């Protein structure tokens, strides 16, 4: 079979299905992932194919979901747990931070934690409180975890597979706003690019624009709009947020001399800060302007009818590009 055209959500479904077929030890756990197929239908059809021992509707308790997955991993299973929305990961924060992340180290490597925590994340969907969060920085600071953030269908499929195959715990931030955006998926050919590497998705010379996950379409759109103004942006999809592929980013910045980072999370204390700090250090003599960031404000995520002003949009990104090039 060659490549098929799938929405991101369905590419993940396919990744889960193929992983369930490939390895008996893989099982899915979460709220409403069984008969319903998940509130985003990402697990649609898997319960009927694999049954309730492998696609498990759990009680409504996130610490319990993640905590039991630790025990299953010790017993040799590869649990893939779904957190229904980004804002509901916090009851499981203790298990993720003090247990999932540390068990391998605690046992001096005796025990592996091949756990995948799927989290639909990000805003822009007109939702009520707690349904639009971008908490990636709260996990990237903790050693022992890995984080992937696919932005397109091909990555969605393969990162799902690769996260499940990984012997370390992986948080998979799924771009919920883009779940229904289609793209080509080739499930038969493992991509050459490692999931832990960033990808230059557009070459350019004037500045580098770095984004990930749900922000990628906006990043590309911005580059197009900038091109119309005669500005040639290089665009990078970070793809992996832990580890972050600094070499690829630095190489680009060494070419362009300028970096703009865009994410939905609040700028203050967001992952962009870490990236800006490292790139400022590594590219000190190449930077023609300070690294700049466009992102959310230091505010609780606002009600849906204000979110357009909170989230980066084309104009804010271009404004950032203008400020960057003004130097």
């Amino acid at each position, binding site marked *: 079979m060659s490549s098929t055209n799938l929405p991101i959500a369905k590419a993940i479904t396919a990744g889960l299905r193929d992983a369930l077929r490939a390895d008996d030890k893989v099982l899915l756990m979460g709220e409403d992932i069984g008969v319903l197929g998940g509130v985003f239908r990402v697990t649609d059809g898997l319960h009927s194919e694999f049954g309730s021992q492998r696609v498990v509707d759990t009680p409504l*308790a996130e610490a319990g979901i993640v905590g039991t997955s630790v025990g299953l991993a010790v017993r040799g299973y590869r649990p893939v747990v779904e957190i229904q929305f980004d804002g509901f990961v916090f009851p499981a924060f203790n298990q993720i931070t003090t247990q999932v992340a540390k068990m391998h180290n605690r046992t001096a490597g005796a025990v592996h934690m091949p756990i995948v925590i799927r989290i639909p994340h990000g805003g822009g969907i007109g939702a009520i*409180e707690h349904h639009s969060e971008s908490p990636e920085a709260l996990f990237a600071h903790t050693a022992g975890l890995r984080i992937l953030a696919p932005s397109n269908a091909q990555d969605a499929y393969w990162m799902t597979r690769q996260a499940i195959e990984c012997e370390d715990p992986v948080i998979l931030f799924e771009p919920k706003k883009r779940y229904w955006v289609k793209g080509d998926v080739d499930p038969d050919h493992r991509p050459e690019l490692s999931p832990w590497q960033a990808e230059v998705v557009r070459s350019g010379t004037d500045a580098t624009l770095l984004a990930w996950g749900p922000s990628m379409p906006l990043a590309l759109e911005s580059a197009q709009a900038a091109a119309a103004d005669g500005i040639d942006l290089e665009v990078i999809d970070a793809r992996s947020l832990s580890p972050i592929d600094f070499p690829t980013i630095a190489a680009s910045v060494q070419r362009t001399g300028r970096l703009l980072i865009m994410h939905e999370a609040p700028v203050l204390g967001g992952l962009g800060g870490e990236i800006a700090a490292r790139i400022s250090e590594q590219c000190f003599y190449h930077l023609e302007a300070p690294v700049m960031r466009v992102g959310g404000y*230091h505010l609780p995520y606002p*009600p849906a009818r204000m979110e357009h002003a909170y989230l980066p949009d084309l104009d804010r990104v271009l404004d950032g590009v203008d400020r960057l090039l003004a130097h």
Partner: protein
Amino acid sequence: MSVFATTIPSVAEQEPLIQLLAPDGTRTPHPELDAVISAAAPGSDGDDLATPERLRGYYRDMVMIRAADLEATSLQRQGQLGLWASALGQEAAQIGAGHASREQDYLVPTYREHGIAWARGIEPWRLLESFRGVSHGGWDPNELRTHPYMIVLGSQAPHAVGYAMGLQRDGVVGTGETATDTAVLALFGDGASSEGEVSESFTFAASFQAPVVFFTQNNQWAISVPASVQSRVPLAQRSRGWGIPSVRVDGNDVLAVLGAVRAALDAARAGEGPQFIEAVTYRMAAHTTSDDASRYRPAVEEQEWGEKDPILRLRRHLEQLGEIDEAFIVRCDEEAHELAMELHHHIHGMEDPDPVGMFTHAYAEPHPIVEAEREQYLEYIAQFEDENENDKAEQRGEQA
């Protein structure tokens, strides 16, 4: 019998279900709860919750809130709301619990508590603010003695206990003053009952003997997950492991709910500590307007529960009492229709908030980062307005 005791019957049917109104409206006497509900009963405190007038009031309330609820669903379909979580079928549980509380009590809802809100005097449009996406909550909790709607399941339960601990420190528990002794009613669903924070709330409430009543509407479903996944035994039994007395009532029977909640709140405010009530009811609609219940439950189940409809039940009871007439029923329906229309117009007329408002309440005291970002935002917007004038936006082919 084994030394391993459950002491709790493990079959649901063995846990009694208190019912004062049968589905056909027949009233079963219940000495203990009657004393709480009706002034006529021996032991009553004189506040008659079951006068014909009050019963008609509950009927009207339920009709009103159902109309508002249905209107909210259609507002969502019209794109006026981002989402709506219907409470259809749970009117008796909510109107009963709401009216069982006293003015001074503090109620702590989850996000589907429209009947509770109605009983507390919160205008329906205020509930819709957060579903429309114009605010995260529509009222002052202290003014209306009702906590905001809470989305992170179970998180509100410890708040309720903390508030009750505050009541103890304020000396408004167990003084015998009906007008001032105060208690808290904490609401959560069958699904939320599994969250660890709910259990921790039981622990704190029991440990401090806080004046709080936990009230679960077991509406049989947590989105697509049946209540049996949260508990294999009746949920009413959950709290007993902490020594918190509990009871299981028919949640579609407004009188049973009224009686149980009033009795529990009175015990709590008298200083007898926490209490727990499971109200057995049914979520007649889908989980929210985003949900499709047909994917996980058979239509016949909805039909069966339709026959236990709480509004119909009270109407039948009033008919049996001869205390309701066609004119009253029609008037209720008309008022409900008016309410729905008002709601419709109110919501359609709602302006979108100025986003600069998002900077206002992140902190109570001045905050330099937020102030700086607010300034930046205003400058950015201003520049953009200039651009707009110059039609720059159009040059970019993009709308502001």
